[in-house]
């Protein structure tokens, strides 16, 4: 009796003694948890911050006002497309700076204005040939090195620019002949070797066609497969095999699907390389598991009483599914499909295997045209040595992320709007 009281006292004494240490441990543990969460979120912030800070300038561009004399001697009226427009632009620059005489210096002078200036001049002459013989004044894009110098990416230094070039640019600036404008080229042009002329339109169009193929194939097939597995398949070995397959396919590395595309679609079926059709087919196989799993979940959430009521009034099983179950499950299926499409839009790994890393300057016009897609364009630009491509890459990433956020946002909105508790 006495001894137990003593141990009781000792125990509570012991507990009390240890309490401080244990509460400290508790706080430490708690702090570790919140620190882990904060670090994860911090990574997100750093990621977005670095991409936006590098990429926002891609949406702007510096241009210079050129006064070019469209020399009739250079223009062959019968063959306007291949006249010497670059020569006309160079002559205009020479006239502005008559003091520059040395060949090497002249070359530096020419390099200030982008080759895009002569394309622009060509388009103007082709549109209206009456300007031949007169002097035209237009805003021309500057070379990529000049552009990033003006954007201040070099800080106080002049980067790859020579002092002479900096002097020329500053003279233009004093005359008010350069200005910063919204970079429409970035959205209207295809890929180019020259960063100042490169745009994402080709890649966005390619992504659009690829996603179109993916959507047209994976949505009906995915919904049909889900309906079969949920509503018609008898439980047994066969449906087990299918289910295990779907679950495993969802976890197979995406690059393996590229090998499949190369071996089956390109080598066996002989479909065109680099085309959006093959890209779409590969992405279809990749997104199918996502869509099937989401669609099955949507079908499962429709209560059995709906089916029983329909069957009770004499509908066939197919009629029950089509008239009653599918309409109720459709919002969930759509949500899953949008999420699957967002995955497909951001997927890159399988595409190099089917040739989708080729340099394609043209904007694709169909599903069999060679094309890049947005993530592949990002990969290609990220690999380019020109410094100006860094901001283009970040800009393209921002566009890609905007698309993804819009898609996922729509999915969340749809889920919220059509969510139904039975």
């Amino acid at each position: 009796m006495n001894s137990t009281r003593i141990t009781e006292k000792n125990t509570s004494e012991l507990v009390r003694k240890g309490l401080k240490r244990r509460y400290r441990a508790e706080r430490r543990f708690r702090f570790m948890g919140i620190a882990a969460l904060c670090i994860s979120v911090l990574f997100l912030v750093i990621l977005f911050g670095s991409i936006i800070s590098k990429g926002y300038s891609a949406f702007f561009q510096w241009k210079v006002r050129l006064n070019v004399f469209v020399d009739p001697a250079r223009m062959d009226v019968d063959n306007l497309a291949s006249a010497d427009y670059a020569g006309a632009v160079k002559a205009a620059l020479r006239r502005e700076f008559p003091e520059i005489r040395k060949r090497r210096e002249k070359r530096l002078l020419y390099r200030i204005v982008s080759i895009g200036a002569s394309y622009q001049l060509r388009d103007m002459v082709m549109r209206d040939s009456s300007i031949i013989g007169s002097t035209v004044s237009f805003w021309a894009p500057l070379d990529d090195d000049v552009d990033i110098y003006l954007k201040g990416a070099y800080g106080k230094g002049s980067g790859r620019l020579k002092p002479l070039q900096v002097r020329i640019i500053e003279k233009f600036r004093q005359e008010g002949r350069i200005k910063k404008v919204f970079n429409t080229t970035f959205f209207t042009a295809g890929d180019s070797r020259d960063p100042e002329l490169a745009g994402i339109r080709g890649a966005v169009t390619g992504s659009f066609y690829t996603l179109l193929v993916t959507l047209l194939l994976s949505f009906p097939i995915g919904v049909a497969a889900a309906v079969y597995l949920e509503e018609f398949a008898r439980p047994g070995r066969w449906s087990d095999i299918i289910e295990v397959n779907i679950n495993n396919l969802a976890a197979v590395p995406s690059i393996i699907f590229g090998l499949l595309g190369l071996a089956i679609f390109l080598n066996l079926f002989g479909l065109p390389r680099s085309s959006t059709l093959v890209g779409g087919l590969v992405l279809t196989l990749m997104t199918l598991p996502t869509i099937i799993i989401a669609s099955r979940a949507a079908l499962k959430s429709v209560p059995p009483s709906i089916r029983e009521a329909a069957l009770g009034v004499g509908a066939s099983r197919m009629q029950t599914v089509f008239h009653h179950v599918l309409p109720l499950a459709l919002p969930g299926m759509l949500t899953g499909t949008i999420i699957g499409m967002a995955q497909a839009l951001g997927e890159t790994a399988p595409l190099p295997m089917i040739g989708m890393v080729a340099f394609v300057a043209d904007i694709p016009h169909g599903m069999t045209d060679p094309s890049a897609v947005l993530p592949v364009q990002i990969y290609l630009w990220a690999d380019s040595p020109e410094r100006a491509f860094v901001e283009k890459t970040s800009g393209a990433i921002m566009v890609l992320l905007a698309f993804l956020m819009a898609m996922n946002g729509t999915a969340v909105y749809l889920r919220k709007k059509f969510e139904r508790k039975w």
Partner: protein
Amino acid sequence: MTSTQLFITVALLACAGFFLGKKRAAIMRDSSGSHSSPGIRPHSTPVYYGFWVSLWAVIPALLVFVCEFVLKRFGHVPFSFRAGVAWEAVAVTSGIVCVIIAWLRLRPETRARNHIETGMNFLFMACATIAIFTTLGIVLSVIFESIRFFKVIPVQEFLFGLKWSPQVAIRPDQVGSTGAFGSVPVLAGTFLISFIAMAVAAPLGLMSAIYLSEYAGSRLRAWAKPCLEILAGIPTVVYGFFAALVVAPQVKAAGEILGLQVSSESALAAGLVMGIMIIPLVSSLSDDVISAVPQAMRDGSYALGATKAETIKNVVIPAALPGIVGGLLLAVSRAVGETMIVVMAAGLSANLTMNPLKAVTTVTVQIVTLLTGDQEFDSPKTLAAFALGLLLFILTLLMNIIALKIVRKYREQYE
């Protein structure tokens, strides 16, 4: 006639068949009740007869298309069909003939709805089996090329060789590049980067999951979970860019401050960023299993006077451990198969090293570099990519199967 035109023609034919069949069935139905012509009432509603007839436009075209494709790809085309037009003509004519026959043979007793529903059932089943065919396609395409590869390079050399340099001499007299296909350094690089990634993702993901499911209030959860989901939704190419242009230079600079020689394509940078990518996967999977631990177990622990942290460490985590391990295994499999981050931020040369500051290469990087550019399906260089693919497929499949089994088994325990 292009395939698009053929498609449109068949679609038009199917439409025509639909309306013809529907019309005929509607006439049959309307006349069945009247006294002047006492026929039998059609078995199904007119719509089904319409579909039934239009089906007969599509089936022959589909059959002809499949025949044409198989013959053109795998056999010799019969001489009379050499001309491109013949196939389309056959498809369209047989379609027209079939539609007319079906239309003429339409009787009130035809059980159109049952036919259509059986057909739909088969179609649905075919869609579901695509998953099986995909798996089969992956296995076959990888295995066939791998067998060709192993005919040139012995299996044991591939599995246990310590040197990887897939550049094969173009001319036989060329010096130096004989090509070596030992996968050990490539695998070692893969696991080094995956290990670094897991060293980042496992503690951060697990602790975030614990905090979110055990400590955080509903408001913080509502705010933090979507943040992690955004992290999961960012395309890997973006992570690759981040790794190559932001993290790698920082790691290099930090190493130089400490007086270390850091490669600009170090395994550390790629692994770090891959770890960030995997955090949401680890945290969402562990969150699921931690939430599945019954509240009664926690209450029991609290009743004995344990603090929250003690309860989590001694009761919740041990109870959730199998599920957590399964989740981590899934994350490793994801890291091993990850491509874009390592393609953009890791190196190309296969160094057999455990030093995270050096450049290493991975299985996925090698597959991409071997298969972009010129492919020659008779050189071991191209075929090696498929052998690596087979290795990667088997590795990830094993990890996934084990992980899914553990997770599922564990889930059943508490349900």
